[in-house]
């Protein structure tokens, strides 16, 4: 799981073009939106695209996405439970 979370963090960095950021700088439990990484609604859409392309998970409602993207921990658990590839 730790290795998977590291891979996921790198995918987030690449998808959101977080230039200069390293995976270890994103805490597993820190909120991704608002006070944490400071992501916004467009980032939420980018993460939805990331889940679909990399794991075959379709999130139709962006509001559902905001719950899934609460933190790296929550996101990793959701992916492991729902991934189709």
């Amino acid at each position, binding site marked *: 799981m730790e290795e998977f979370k590291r891979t996921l963090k790198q995918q987030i960095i690449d998808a*959101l*073009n*977080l*230039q*200069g*950021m390293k995976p270890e700088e994103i805490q597993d439990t820190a909120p991704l939106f608002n006070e944490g990484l*400071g992501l916004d609604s*467009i980032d939420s*859409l*980018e993460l*939805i*695209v990331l889940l*679909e*392309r990399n794991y075959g998970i*379709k999130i139709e409602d962006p509001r559902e996405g905001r719950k899934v993207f609460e933190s790296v921990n929550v996101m990793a658990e959701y992916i492991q439970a729902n991934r189709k590839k």
Partner: protein
Amino acid sequence: MLDPVYIRASRAVTAQDTFAANSLPAVFSDAINNTLSYLQPAYQDYFTIMQLRRMSRITRIGMVAAIECLRDAKLTHPQAIITGTGKGSLSDTEKFIHNIMEFNEGTLNPTPFIQSTYNALNGMIGLHHDSSSYNTTYVHRGFSLEHAILDAMMHLHDGEAENALVGSFEEITGEHFVIKEKMGYWKKENISRTELLQADTPGSIAGEGTFFFVLQKQPEDAMVRLNGMKLLFEPQEHQVREQAQALLNANGLSWNDLDVVLLGNNGDNRFDHYYSNFASQLSDETHQLAFKHICGEFDTASGFALWLTAHLVKEQEFSNDLLLKKGSRMRLRNVLIYNNYYGSHHALYLLQECQ
């Protein structure tokens, strides 16, 4: 007839070092593979990494040019933000189209789509300056900047605004270069800027440029006055001369009053006859200058001529590298710009030193 407007401030990001010092440099870069590409400003001085990550090359350039232009004009909230662009953010458009193909029209990344829209830069400028005033982008190929300026002139004329931030932005990409190469836009042979205007072959060199101007109704602290413009679509040569004559007459001037004429020669022997015939009626005293060997050819290249004019009138000097034909006038007071985009979109600008 619209009232004259005044250019209070101007900024240019081009292939040359025009941005940092906000003047024409003493030394010019040459085209590489027939392309004059942007010399990019230091973005980290303006934006955080979190802001930069979602900004494309052209929106970064446009934002810093707009920010500095407004700073030069000591203006924090422009009463109108109006731009023109022939192609907008080409790199994002290409990225978005590639995405559509690669993912078979499935779920697509939102960022390139948002950035590929022509008015993305205008929105960013408005947000950055907390401005909810009139905000429009014109996309009219070789008349894009001209329509932005006309809109601003009408706003100022009608009293709907006292000032307006007006600009244009354009970029060239590798793919777009190849497409236009197939259409015969560029020279087949590699050519230097010093040889371009003498070349008797078809095609030109590609360029890119972003220009911003603060236009205002009042003459206070202005660089130059824009008396008027004329736009002609696919005219005969005599119609260009007649419309230039009409523009001069409307402002109480004759051909002999022109101190400088800036011509859009691009070295393409299919279209440069417009300029040579136009120039044949000019007085020997009038300086004839060219500019596209410095900035390259693109839809909104007349922005470079406008930026040059504002500076040469303010500073009362120009680089000999621009000279097509030296005149004898010492005072640079009345300037006419004549530019056309591949023979179809012809624009005339008449500018005058502020009293």
